[in-house]
């Protein structure tokens, strides 16, 4: 009997090369005659370019060429936006290199191509650019005022949308209580540890582009469309990729320009960003103003929810920019039942780096908005926040449940996850301690934050994407090849950048084909190897790509069954498949699938109509999203004298359906929770009044280090997804979605008796202290009146 691989905490196949430095990061790669590209970037948030003179750079030693935007204008095209969410959306032209106007600090205005990066950097200094400054547009509310300076000629509103379900007016008119809050989702910098890098080469006929990207397949299509290089003459390779978190789900200016430069020069070129260049020019995340109104009965039953978002697009619409906030649309109602829901969203142009997908993409923002507001409702009604949630959430025996926003949640058990989390945290005991500290006026107050999240994962059913005006499908591709010696190659269209697909896909394949885990290899990330794919984002890899692998294995097995029947001289129906072998029922006669692979290779004795191969090719398109959920509880101690927050304990109980590799799941949750905590406590991209990014380095943009985070207590409940045969739901974004509101709810919970009902993220000691000062001031004024 073979051991079941699915569910085992397998150590990763990926690790050895990463641990010993035998990696293929794009910047590690070189080609004979390689040239280095560097970009001169705009120091102005908004300006007309009146003159660019690159001649000084061209004269310097080691410099092969230098170009302005004007030099490339005829061939550079416009960077694509693949998600025009409304019919009348304004998608402005987006030249990869600015030609006549710059609209954010960091936009490329010229480039140098030199024999090494030091020479290229020197030469940038010799380029002369003259600007005529135009007013920066930084605040979304001001940008929408009629007299605001315009980012684009057509105005600062990219799009406006609104959907309403149920009788929202009645829900609010008849409500006993209405909570009305505005929350700021600050702008974040994704900060994958590997900076972006691009290498492009040509043999004079066709092109190869290596990029630190999450989306080699989408990138290939888009580059072909933008540059006119025919798709069949273009190969895109994502070698080892050092993290993405959505930031490498993009078709970037630098990718397009490197391809154009290699076409112009006929030589290989490489560009590697510095971190400060990356902070300026890797798309940013979040950045919303959320106006949320929640109507409820006196007993806490939610009647209606109104959400109105302003979403900062930045200066242009990049690949998915307009769609990201709209992903929150079906999610603000979360796990709660209600009678009516209204979602409105305006996409607003500003003179800042464009925003786009960042871990969770629209769903963390929505979860934050609703989970914060539900806590406020609980406070208003003087109810326990867990009890309030219980009164409103979908009960486990109500699944499948179609929500007010129209999604059908297939499975879940909010009660079970919450009970487990409360018990792991010791909720009641902590509440008692909290009461005690409040009574004692302890300068260090205790707060408990609750976050009962769900998310739509596994992006996405193609049919739904079509209805949402998304320019691609949501399927994934897999191919399984049995090699002559019985070893197995799995090809996946979903290429990983830290998620461990090679290990998990091996586990799925090992179980499906009954071959040893070690006999399987997984290939990905090269359009010449994995010729089809929709790539990696939106917690989709396992839910769609993993299922595609399973289905590809099933096809191989079907072929092998026919071959086995021929070899064993029986009917296919007489065969049973067990532990990697086809056995003739009731006899000792059998052939393993690995032996059959050799029979297919020699092809000496194949039945009529059977091809000499044991391989398959599958695309899988999901019928529904998957809906992971969970309960995260965070206990914080807030020093009311210094404003310092310390996370005392963090408990996460997640239901992500069936688990392929618990070790990988745990790792994803750890990292996700850390990233969500980072938004709550540390991170913010800050622009000054002139539109200069102040947080250009890791000294200014505060990624948490090991001392800033606690260990997390994790557990799982398991309600298998019913929409896919693996029963899996996806885990990549869960932690990030859940943890931000858990932490902020905890801080507000700690300080509520002191008159605090919100602290704006990141809840730095200074922000907390200022909020407390303002509350003290209000209290004094109230007392004096």
């Amino acid at each position, binding site marked *: 009997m073979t051991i079941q691989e699915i569910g085992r905490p397998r*150590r*990763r196949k*990926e*690790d*050895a090369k*990463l*641990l*010993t*430095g*035998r*990696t293929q*990061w794009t*910047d*590690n790669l070189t080609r004979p005659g390689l040239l280095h590209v560097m970009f001169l970037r705009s120091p102005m948030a908004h300006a007309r370019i009146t003159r660019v003179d690159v001649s000084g750079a061209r004269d310097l030693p080691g410099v092969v060429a230098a170009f302005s935007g004007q030099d490339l204008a005829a061939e550079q095209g416009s960077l694509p936006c693949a998600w025009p969410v409304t019919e009348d959306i304004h998608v402005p032209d987006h030249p990869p290199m600015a030609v006549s106007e710059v609209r954010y600090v960091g936009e490329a205005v010229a480039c140098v191509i030199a024999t*090494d*990066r*030091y020479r290229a950097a020197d030469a940038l200094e010799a380029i002369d650019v003259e600007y005529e400054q135009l007013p920066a547009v930084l605040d979304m509310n001001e940008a929408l005022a009629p007299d605001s300076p315009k980012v684009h000629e057509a105005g600062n509103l990219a799009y406006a949308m609104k959907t309403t379900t149920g009788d929202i007016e009645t829900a609010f008119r008849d409500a006993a209580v209405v909570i009305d809050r505005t929350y700021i989702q600050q702008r974040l910098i994704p*900060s*994958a*540890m*590997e*900076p972006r890098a691009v290498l492009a080469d040509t043999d004079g006929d066709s092109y190869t582009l290596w990029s630190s990207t999450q989306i080699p397949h989408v990138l290939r299509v888009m580059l072909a469309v933008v540059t006119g290089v025919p798709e069949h003459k273009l190969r895109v390779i994502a070698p*080892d*990729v*050092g*993290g993405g*978190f959505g930031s490498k789900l993009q078709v970037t200016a630098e990718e397009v320009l490197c391809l154009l430069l290699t076409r112009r020069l006929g030589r290989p070129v490489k560009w590697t960003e*510095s*971190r*400060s260049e990356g902070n300026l020019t890797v798309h940013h995340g979040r950045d919303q103003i959320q106006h949320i109104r929640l109507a409820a009965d006196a007993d806490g039953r939610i009647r209606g929810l109104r959400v109105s978002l302003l979403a900062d697009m930045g200066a242009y619409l990049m690949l998915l920019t307009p769609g990201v906030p709209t992903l929150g649309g079906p999610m603000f109602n979360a796990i709660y039942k209600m009678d009516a829901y209204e979602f409105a969203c305006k996409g607003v142009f500003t003179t800042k780096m464009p925003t786009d997908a960042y871990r969770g993409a629209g769903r963390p923002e929505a979860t934050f908005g609703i989970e914060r507001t539900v806590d406020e409702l609980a406070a208003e009604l003087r109810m326990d926040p867990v009890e309030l949630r219980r009164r409103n959430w979908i009960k486990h025996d109500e699944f499948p449940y179609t929500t007010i926003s129209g999604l059908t949640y297939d499975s879940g058990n909010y009660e079970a996850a919450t009970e487990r989390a409360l018990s792991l945290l010791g909720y009641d005991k902590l509440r008692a301690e909290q009461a005690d500290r409040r009574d004692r006026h302890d300068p260090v107050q205790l707060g408990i934050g609750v976050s009962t999240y769900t998310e739509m994962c596994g992006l996405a059913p193609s049919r739904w994407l079509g209805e949402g005006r998304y320019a691609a499908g949501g399927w994934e591709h897999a191919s399984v090849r049995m090699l002559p010696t019985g070893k197995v190659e799995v090809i996946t269209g979903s290429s990983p*950048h*830290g*998620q*461990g697909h090679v290990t998990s896909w091996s586990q799925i394949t090992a179980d499906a084909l009954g071959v040893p885990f070690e006999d399987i290899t997984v290939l990905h990330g090269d359009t010449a190897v994995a010729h089809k794919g929709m790539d990696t984002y939106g917690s989709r890899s396992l839910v769609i790509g993993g299922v595609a692998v399973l289905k590809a294995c099933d096809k191989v097995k079907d072929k092998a069954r026919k071959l086995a029947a021929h070899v064993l001289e029986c009917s296919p129906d007489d065969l049973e498949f067990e532990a990697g072998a086809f056995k003739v029922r009731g006899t000792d006669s059998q052939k393993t699938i690995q032996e059959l692979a050799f029979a297919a290779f020699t092809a000496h004795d194949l039945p009529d109509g059977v091809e000499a191969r044991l391989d398959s090719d599958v695309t899988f398109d999901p019928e529904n999203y998957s809906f992971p959920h969970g309960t995260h509880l965070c206990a914080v101690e807030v020093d009311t004298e210094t404003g310092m927050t310390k996370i005392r304990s963090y408990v996460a109980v997640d239901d992500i359906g069936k688990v392929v590799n618990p*070790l*990988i799941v*745990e*790792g*994803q949750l*750890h*990292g*996700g*929770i*850390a*990233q969500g905590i980072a938004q709550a406590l540390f991170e913010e991209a800050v622009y000054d009044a002139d539109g200069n990014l102040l947080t250009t*380095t*890791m*000294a200014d943009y505060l*990624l948490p*280090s*090991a*001392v800033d*985070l606690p*260990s*997390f207590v994790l557990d799982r409940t398991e309600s298998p997804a019913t929409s896919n045969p693996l029963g899996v739901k996806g885990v990549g974004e869960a*932690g990030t979605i859940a943890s931000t509101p858990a932490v902020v709810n905890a801080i507000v919970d700690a300080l509520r008796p002191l008159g605090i009902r919100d602290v704006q993220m990141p809840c730095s000691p200074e922000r907390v202290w200022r909020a407390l000062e303002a509350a003290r001031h209000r209290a004094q004024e109230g007392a004096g009146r």
Partner: protein
Amino acid sequence: MPRITVTVDGIKYEEDVEPRLLLVHLLRERLGKTGTPVGCDTSNCGACTIMLDGKSAKSCSVLAVQADGCDIVTIEGLGTNGSMHPMQRAFHEEHALQCGYCTPGMVMAAIDLLREEPDPSEESIRHGLEGNLCRCTGYCNIVRAVRRGAQEMGQAVTTP
């Protein structure tokens, strides 16, 4: 151009270098030692951490000329006879890496912190790794790996 002599992972190199050349660029672009990556330009992230004469150093913050005469060990030279260093193995066992970009620096910093504290508590591990950033793991499994690595290294010394 100054000529320097450095030993990297047991091999001696003589190189003519521009005074401004960073050690990490010498390693990566001249000597082909691409196992040591670059993650930032302000010495915050620690991805480029190496051992310089037995102590950890961020190779983006050292000029190649400053390393003249030094003995350097990178992640590529850490194992012996084709087998991984106990700390590398511990990172594998505890799933302390995901994308792996911070890993070379993290492993180096972990080994370095054990020089002064061979059996560190969770708190001292967290403090000891403060100069190395990871975006994937939330550090939980890195802390576990360093404890495991410390135990195994301790045993390697004490058992015959």
